[in-house]
């Protein structure tokens, strides 16, 4: 199978998955207790007003009809209207996307900066001193609640030094950067133990492979061996690994954004939940789910392009 066929096949497999996601998100509203039309017009509204609201919201249709309607709207980028403010859901979400994107990009970079050296160090000598220290650190880091790590960073770094903001997103590029350092570090501390664990296993596997033995027998060793032979072959599993952790990453983003009062998608989701704003919550859930699926796809495609073996096996 060629590379393009592989990409095409993955794209096709995406369609039922996306449909399933839209369906589950649609169902969420159905299983939620309470009458959305009543919520929209308020508790004191007359029965006529409620019925009218139900009609405008399409609630008088059959359930399959409502689903098709919802699907059609979603495809066209219409995710409904907020109960509280009446503004289109998509308009509420849009300005929050860059904030979360900042957090994720800087967070991933910091995670790699932390986890790659630790994982390689541990893998070079399994059961050695470095390995034990790294594994011990991972267990510790995994035990700490994410929100608490964030608060501790505020208490220990932001408050005493005053060098970094306690919360908010700041202004301008430098302001954003300063505002994102601690949240990104928190996310990285949460994600690194997971990454280190799998990366360590990957690197050990690569180190035991025949081409590394061959390179070693040719006299390649030390940093050159790690860079040219080990890291190169550990790269594609690493991308897959990162992609698989996207869901966890977004979960962490929800918590970290709330902790640091960052106006991103995660904080938006939490405040929508607080406000019982169903269409908004639906919108966030859908955007998160689709983002995760798309990131899986991109990762698969990138790995396939980097590493021809994947396509042959697939």
């Amino acid at each position, binding site marked *: 199978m060629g590379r393009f066929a592989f990409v095409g096949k993955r794209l096709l497999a995406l369609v039922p998955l996306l449909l399933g*996601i839209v369906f589950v998100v649609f169902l969420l509203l159905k299983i939620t207790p309470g009458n959305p039309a009543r919520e929209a017009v308020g508790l004191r509204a007359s029965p006529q007003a409620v019925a009218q609201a139900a009609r405008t919201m399409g609630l008088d249709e059959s359930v399959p009809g409502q689903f098709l309607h919802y699907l059609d709207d979603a495809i066209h980028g219409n995710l409904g209207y907020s109960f509280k403010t009446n503004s289109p859901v998509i308009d509420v979400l849009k300005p929050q996307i860059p904030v979360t994107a900042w957090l994720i990009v800087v967070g991933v970079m910091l995670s790699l900066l932390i986890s790659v050296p630790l994982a390689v160090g541990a893998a070079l000598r399994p059961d050695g001193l470095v390995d034990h220290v790294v594994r011990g650190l991972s267990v510790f880091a995994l035990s*700490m609640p994410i*929100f*608490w790590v964030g*608060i501790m960073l505020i*208490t220990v770094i932001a*408050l005493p030094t005053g060098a970094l903001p306690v919360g908010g997103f700041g202004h301008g590029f430098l302001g954003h950067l300063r505002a994102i350092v601690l949240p990104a570090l928190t996310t990285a501390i949460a994600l690194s133990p997971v990454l280190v664990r799998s990366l360590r296993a990957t690197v050990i596997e690569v180190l035991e492979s025949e081409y590394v033995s061959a390179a070693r027998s040719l006299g390649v060793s030390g940093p050159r061996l790690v860079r040219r032979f080990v890291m190169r072959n550990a790269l594609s599993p690493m991308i897959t690994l990162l992609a698989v952790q996207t*869901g966890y990453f*977004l979960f962490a983003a929800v918590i970290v954004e709330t902790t640091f009062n960052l106006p991103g998608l995660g904080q938006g989701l939490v405040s929508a939940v607080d406000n019982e704003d169903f269409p908004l919550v639906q919108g966030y859930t859908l955007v998160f789910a689709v983002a995760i699926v798309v990131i899986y796809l991109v990762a698969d495609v990138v790995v396939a392009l980097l590493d021809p073996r994947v396509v042959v096996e697939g």
Partner: protein
Amino acid sequence: MSILPATDAFVKEPVRGGRRRLPSWKLAVGAAIVGAFVLIAIFAPEIAPYGPLKTDPLNTLQPPGAPGHLLGTDDLGRDELSRLIYATRIDLPIAAAAALLSALLGTLLGMAAGYVGGWVDMVVLRVADLVQAFPIYILLIALVFALGAGARSFLIAYIVVDWVVYARLVRGEILRVRGLDYVLAARAAGLPNWRILFVHVLPNTIGQSVVYVMSDMVFAILALSAFSFLGVGISPPAAEWGAMTAEGQQFLGVAWWLTVCPGVAIALVALGLSLIGDALQDRMRR
């Protein structure tokens, strides 16, 4: 009872007969930590100096070490230590129930899928696929939202998402074990299916699940406190570690103990459970 998975050595005499090994330091430390917390939860009213909701307007935001308040007080004058102690009665049972009920449901469905096979297997697998196709953390948040805050919602949402892992683990093990000699022998001897399943097959297939329950409880306790921190789990004024941290965050600059203490409690329990899980995993590997 040994938690070793069935190997050929066990076919003649499954389960019983695992050699006793010295408990590792991980198991000892982990069990000590978790055991201490369980005891604290059981004897909370006897240990805690005050009630968890007892306010004291004259002694608000007292630092740790203030007379009568070992870990200080919060903005309402509630004793921090007492609240931490009483929180064990919320965090521990809910987290344990979330993991254990998921394990129970998943094991039963996995057993049915693996042993009965046919359409039962297919239905269980398809539903599992559906749950797993969805990003689980987002599903968890959405479910908790749809069901409303509170312990019951958290439990339901958690079980809906989590049973899948156990079902897959147990199903896979059962498929591996059910063709082994001792199961065939039990069948040939005419033992009823339920007896074969529960007495002969199950004990040899749940090893991995037992290990997983430990990390699952770690995750459940972190998830519960995170949801409570976000305001969609256990709501204040109930003493719950995540909710306490959220309340304390308003007083970061003036009362660090209100955020430091609950986090340390969560991390300690999680660490204890991880150590036990690690020790069990080490045992299985050997």
